[in-house]
Every structure is written in C-alpha cells, then in structure tokens.
C-alpha cells in the first residue's frame, strides 16, 4: 500500500478563485446514495413491454433466410423486427458531429443485413410481455446462415487473399479512393522533415513491434433504452447515453424521420468511457414500439454488452526511433494498424496524432491503417487509440534511456514538446504542460523513494490527448430569491453538473448552493455534443460561463435603469452591482433578483458555443511493482498519477478521473482482453473471466494535479477525462522490465505472458 508520509493528492495550483477550485458536494449526490436516481433501466411507463435481441452465433456468415413466424405465434409476443423493417441506407452519409459516416455502416450494425460480421451481431428482435417471454421467443426465430471464414486480427485481415468482410469496401489510399476491394478501409500518412536523413543522423536506433488486445470500456451499467413510438408518429426515447443528440440524430436518420419528431431524454448513466456514444438498440426498440403499440424497454445482458457493443481496437504497431548520443531524438517512424471491428472507423487517426506528440522530433513519418475484422464494431474508449500507441513509443523511449545510461525522465524532458513544437500531423502546439508534468514527476517523493527487494522495479511513462471542443449550449434563469437554475445537455457521468455550475457561480459571484443545474432532454436545450473528448467541463463549462455573463450584462442594464444611470457606469464585482458615477450605488445580485419582473421581466441568459482554444492534456505515471518469478503475477506496490488539468475546477473529480483512468489502464495492461477462439467466439464474455480490477487488485492511487492554464478557457481548464488512461500499460511494462529484465511488447501482460517471457529469458524450454 502507498506510503502516506506525504499528501496523497497534490494540487500544484497556479491561480485561485472563489468557487472554482473548491470541492462542493455534487448536486445529484443525494439521489445517487439513496437509490433514487433514475438510470435508464429504471424507467417505466404504463403498458411497458420488454424487448430482447437475437445475436449471431457466427463471426462471419451470409444470412440466407430468417423465419420469424414461430416467434410471432408465441402467445406473449407483441412484435418481432428484422433488418427488413429498416429502409436500406444505400450510400447515404450522415454527419453526426464526429465526421462523415456511411449511414449503412451504422444501420447494418443495428440490425445485420445480408451478412453477419461478428459473433453477437444483432439479427432480429422480439418484444413480449416479460423479459423471460422475450428471451424464450428468440429461440423460436429460425435463421439460416452460410458461415464464412473469419479474420480476427489486423495483420490477418491485411493479407492478400484474406476473407473480405464487405463486398463494396475499397481502400482509400493516402486520401485517394481506389477500386481495390480490401479489408483496409484507409491508409494515411503524416510526414515531417526527412526521415531517411533523420535516421542517418542517429547514433542509436531502436525498432520494435507491438500487439495490443481488444478491450472493453467495462461500464457497470449495461446499455438500455425505452422507446415509445406515439400514435402521432413522434418518437420518445429514454436511455443511458453519452450523447442524447447523437442518439436523436442517428435514430432519426435510420428511421427516416425529421429530427423534430424524435425526442431523447438522457437518464442518469452508469458509465460510458466512449462506449455509450454509438447507437445500438434505440431504433430497434422504437420499431418494436411502432409494431406493438406499446412502449418497449430493452436492457442488454452483460454478454450482449461484451459481444454486441463497441470495444476499443486491438492493434499491431511498429515503431522505430533514432536518438543521438547526446540524448537528442532525431527521427521517429510508426506504422499503426488498428482493428476497426466489423465496420470502418478504428481510432487510428487520433492514435497517429498522439503516437509521438510528447516529443519534439524533427523527422517523423507515421502510417495509419484502418482495418476491418470480424469483431464487434469498435467505439471510443478514453483517449481512443492513444494508449496502444504510447505502449509502443514509451517502451522505446525508456529503452533508449537505458542504453544511453540517462534517467528516463531526463531523456523525455530533453525532447519534450512545448509551445510552438510542430506536431507530425502539421499544426504547432499551443501552450501545453508536457515539461511541467515531467518536472512534477521528477520532483515527486515517489520518484526518489527507495525501492528495495528482489523482483521489484519502478517504471515511468507519459501520454498525450488533444481533447475536444465541439458544440454545447446552456441556459440560465434568475430566480427572485437570487438563486439561478442552469440547464445544459451534457449527461453527467462524473460530477459535471457541479463542475459546470461552479463556473457559472464563479462568474456571478454566487455560492454553489444557489445554482441548480439540470441535464435535460433534446427538446429543452440547444445542440450539445457528446459527453466525451474530455470536453464537458471545458466546452459546456464555457457555455455556462457565457450564459452567466449574458445574465450579468442584462442585470447590469436593470441596475442602471433602477438607478437612472448609464449602464456603462455599472460594474459587477463578486456578486455586487456598483455604479460609481457621482454618488455610489450598490446592489447585490440577491437584492436585484426580486426586482426583475418590475424592470422588464425575467432574465434568461443563454449561450451556444463551439469553442476553439481546446487545451490538450498530458498525463504521466510512476509505478512500483513486484513480480512473483514463479507465477509471473504482477503486484502493484505503489502508483502515482500526474496530469495537467489546466485548472482543476473541482479537484476531487479531477482526481477521480485520474484514478479511474489509471485503474482502467492497469486492467488493460495486466489482464483485460477479448480472448477469441479461432472461430471468432469471445471465450470470456462475463465479468468473471473478463478480468477488470477489483478493489483487492489495486493500491491507493496517489494523484498530482498540475495546472498549466489553458489560454482558451477563462479559468484555464483543459479537460481531464482521458489522458490518464494512456501511460499505465507503458509504465507497467517499464516497471516489469526493471524488476525481472524482460521486454513485454504485447498486451495484456498477464501472468502467463510474463511467465513465458521469464522462461524465454532464462532459456527454459518445454
């Protein structure tokens, strides 16, 4: 357990405020500790019936026929749907705020058309009086399949003559469409400087290959939805989602409805981490509701979640880096082949933007491959793509430090990216905290603490995530008692109601208890992009700041009217309106609030933003491990997480993000994987065998928040949701190397893998 001789959670604050930076109790807290909070599966409506989804037993097969007649004849069954109930999307494309996507890909993932592309692919659905009846009826649906050979990894799928998933997928080669049918949806390249010259200048060149397994976000709450297709043709959906507007727009597109006919109410959500952005069951439940005339609820089983939703890509990565003897990195080359799963869209573009982002290297070439395989269509997972990439890069950087005989943090500091460093994908970095994070790591007591005993080692690693901006909206209404109600559209997964409310409170000089924030449905607030990309506290927070300023400016005019002075002479300081022209007038926010009706009517502040000035975040880990050399089991003795928050609006929840991201990174590093048999069946689709860390597997996770203000946000916030998951696998691999002198280049580094590496090192053969 961690050494408590120092503060386990440090905040290296650079600027202080009245509300921002404090640790109030979250507004939804009481509901969530008493069981009153309503999550998606808790929704109930009069006449509610229950849906269940039939999933493919094959990883790759043609659907020859589907016969639903027996299921329809079941006395308790109210409706059955298949792909035939949804219009063919043709080559229609939709922009769901994350770039252009072929509607057919989303639609055919919701219900398979012609082919099933992974085991667990939805094929049909049933609605019945009870869940038990619905599940029973699934067995009555007869599907005839023509099984096809599956391809399960990127290298396999890229081979000439590999079994093809799609009859119409051609490779986009370096930005240009080709007519080559392939499992490679796209190959792109970033280039900077002259890679050949770079390696020619290097004194030391290291090149290695890495493989990482498919892993799942593992949120504890399974996907769920309740849909009502009303008699006027309007659709209402209640669901646990990170993106109510994404669900609305996608469902409308798939069901060919105007967006105004679909209303999505985001319930409380039991975790997402990127996995609750895509649409799976919402349009299905809506169709079942249309056919049955009842509201329909679908709740996925855990196996459905693991086999039928979007995990994050497995990958095959080659990295080559060159450094001079003086510790200057001169060249870096990466080939990133990421498994998209059944449909294109592996998170390889963000991976390419992060793989070398931490280092200022003059000559860089990065090739990215988006490869379809017979696994579930992948989704985002906390800094999607970056963890795989950093596992490779950081391994090589630490190995270089070892060969050059320099401190691994010094080598990183020597080459750290800073403001003005040009990234391989083009743009120069704005103000970033890479150097500050590394310096905090170096000066942290953990780094200098002695680590004695055999089979023990210490590792370090860092990671970068650029974070996202994207649209957000917010309305604020002033109440007569001087409190405000704040309405926003970002589902609250980790205390963001409060971190957003705090920013409005700061602007208006109010105590946080006087702000009542709510997350509302898609008819009740302007378009707000997903809770994702570490963007909510930054972007929705900015919307709240602007809405609060709008309130402030309107109230200044009211004060001016009351005092009969020019509005320009009225200032607002810490919740007090002051006019200093001649006689000084003062009025608090609470004194002015009751006078609004009489001075022109209620005041509603509003803002819609799509902010530039996103601040990327760096994270780092120091980790100590002990390895049982007879079993290969890794025990974490001590773990410290570092991250640049820009400004920690609510430090407790920033620490929470850092600790949670670290725990997920540790699980990814040590045990989690999709264990597939050769037929493409996931053999460990339960929480018993998909081994996420338990409370007994982790130590206390100490945190150190670094605050390098983001110039793009009034309080300097950057967004902290994601970067923290990136370093753990690389830091653990480094620690394992230092403990028992093995080089782990494959995730997970589970006991079998570590033991086999130890045997190999010792020359032990079967």
């Amino acid at each position, binding site marked *: 357990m961690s050494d408590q001789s120092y503060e386990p959670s440090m905040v290296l604050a650079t600027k202080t405020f009245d509300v921002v930076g404090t640790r109030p109790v979250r507004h939804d807290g009481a509901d969530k500790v008493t069981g009153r909070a309503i999550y998606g599966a808790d929704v109930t409506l009069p006449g509610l019936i229950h849906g269940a989804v039939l999933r493919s037993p094959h990883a790759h097969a043609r659907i020859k026929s589907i016969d639903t007649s027996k299921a329809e004849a079941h006395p308790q069954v109210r409706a059955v749907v298949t792909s035939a109930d949804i219009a063919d999307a043709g080559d229609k494309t939709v922009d769901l705020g994350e770039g252009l996507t072929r509607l057919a890909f989303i639609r055919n993932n919701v219900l398979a058309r012609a082919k099933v592309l992974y085991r667990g692919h939805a094929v049909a659905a049933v609605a019945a009086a009870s869940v038990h009846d619905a599940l029973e009826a699934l067995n009555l649906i007869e599907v005839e399949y023509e099984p096809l050979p599956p391809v399960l990894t990127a290298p396999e799928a890229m081979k000439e003559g590999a079994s093809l998933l799609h009859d119409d997928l051609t490779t986009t080669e*370096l*930005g240009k469409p080709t007519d080559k049918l392939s499992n490679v949806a796209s190959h792109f390249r970033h280039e900077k400087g002259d890679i050949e010259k770079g390696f020619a200048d290097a004194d030391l060149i290291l090149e290695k290959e890495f493989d990482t397994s498919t892993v799942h976000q593992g949120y504890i709450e399974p996907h769920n939805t309740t849909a009502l297709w009303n008699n006027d043709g309007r659709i209402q959906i209640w669901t646990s989602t990170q993106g109510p507007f994404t669900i609305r727009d996608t469902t409308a597109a798939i069901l060919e409805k105007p967006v105004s006919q679909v209303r999505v109410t985001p319930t409380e959500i039991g975790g997402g981490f*990127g996995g609750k952005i895509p649409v799976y069951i919402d349009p299905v439940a809506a169709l079942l509701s249309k056919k049955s005339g009842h509201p329909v609820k679908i709740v996925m089983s855990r196996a459905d979640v693991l086999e039928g939703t979007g995990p994050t890509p497995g990958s095959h990565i080659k990295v080559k880096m060159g450094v001079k003897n003086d510790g200057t990195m001169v060249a870096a080359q990466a080939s990133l082949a990421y498994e998209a799963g059944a449909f294109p869209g592996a998170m390889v573009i963000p991976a390419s*933007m992060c793989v070398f982002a931490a280092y200022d290297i003059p000559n860089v070439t990065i090739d990215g491959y988006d490869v379809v395989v017979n696994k579930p269509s992948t989704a985002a*997972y906390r800094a*999607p793509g970056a963890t795989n990439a950093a596992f490779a890069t950081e391994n090589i950087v630490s190995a270089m430090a070892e060969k050059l005989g320099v401190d691994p943090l010094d080598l990183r500091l020597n080459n750290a990216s800073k403001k003005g460093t040009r990234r391989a994908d083009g*743009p120069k970095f704005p103000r970033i905290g890479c150097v500050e994070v590394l310096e905090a790591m170096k000066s942290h007591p953990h780094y200098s603490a002695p680590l004695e005993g055999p089979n023990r080692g210490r590792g370090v690693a860092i990671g970068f995530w650029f974070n996202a901006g994207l649209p957000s909206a917010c309305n604020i209404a002033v109440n007569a008692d001087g409190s405000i109600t704040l309405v926003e559209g970002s589902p609250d997964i980790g205390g963001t109601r409060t971190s957003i409310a705090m920013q409005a409170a700061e602007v208006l000089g109010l105590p946080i208890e006087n702000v009542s924030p709510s997350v509302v449905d898609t008819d009740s607030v302007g378009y707000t*992009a997903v809770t*994702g990309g570490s963007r909510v506290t930054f972007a929705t927070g900015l919307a709240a700041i602007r809405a609060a300023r709008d309130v402030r400016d309107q109230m200044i005019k009211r004060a001016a009217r009351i005092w009969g002075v020019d509005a320009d002479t009225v200032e607002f300081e810490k919740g007090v309106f002051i006019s200093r022209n001649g006689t000084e007038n003062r009025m608090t926010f609470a004194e002015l609030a009751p006078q609004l009706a009489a001075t022109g009517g209620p005041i509603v502040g509003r803002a819609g933003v799509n902010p530039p000035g996103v601040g990327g975040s760096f994270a780092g880990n120091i980790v100590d491990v002990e390895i049982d050399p007879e079993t290969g089991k890794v025990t974490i003795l001590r773990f410290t997480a570092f991250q640049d928050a820009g400004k920690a609006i609510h430090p407790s929840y920033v620490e929470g993000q850092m600790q949670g991201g670290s725990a997920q990174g540790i699980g990814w590093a040590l045990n989690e994987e999709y264990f597939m048999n050769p037929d493409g069946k996931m053999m460990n689709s339960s929480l018993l065998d998909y081994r996420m860390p338990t409370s007994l597997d982790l130590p206390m996770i100490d945190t150190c928040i670094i605050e390098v203000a983001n110039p793009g946000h009034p309080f300097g916030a950057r967004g902290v949701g994601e970067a923290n998951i990136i370093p753990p696998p690389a830091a653990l691999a480094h620690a394992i190397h230092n403990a028992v002198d093995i080089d782990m280049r494959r995730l997970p580094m589970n006991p079998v893998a570590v033991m086999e590496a130890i045997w190999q090192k010792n020359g032990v053969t079967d």
Partner: protein
Amino acid sequence: MATVFIPGSMRDLTGGQAEIEVHGSTVRDIVDELDVAHPGVKDWLVDGNRLKPSLSVAVDGVVSPLGLLQDVEGNSEVHFVAAIAGGC
C-alpha cells in the same frame, strides 16, 4: 501572405510542394486561390460550401470550428487536418 501546409496525400495536386504562400483573408479565399494555381485542390478539400466533414482546418495551430469561414491573418499558418472527436 498565409502559409498553407499541404497534406502529403494532396501533394500530387501541388506538384509535390509541401508549403505554399497564398493570399486571402479567409480559409475560403485561400482554397479558391490554391485551386486556381493547382486545380483539383478545392474538390479535394471542399464538399459543397463547407470543408469535407472528414477534415478540419487549423489556423496557427488552433483547429477552427468555423472551417471555410475562419479568418486568416497575413502571416498565418494554415493546416488541413483530419476531423475527429474524442471519447471518454
């Protein structure tokens, strides 16, 4: 003049040039200007009256949500980069 950085995959349209100096006060001007000197550039970047949804434009390192409407200074750096959103 603003400096436009040409993505590797677009360089065959610019005769291999990686950086091109272009006049213009908005990204749209710049794209039009480029297309005159290097026909095909506009098709490559633009879809109707907006940037292709798969692309973003970064001016002086900052990805702009305004796309073609983004103002450009005389000495600005303009990059066309892939549009992506994160997940958390």
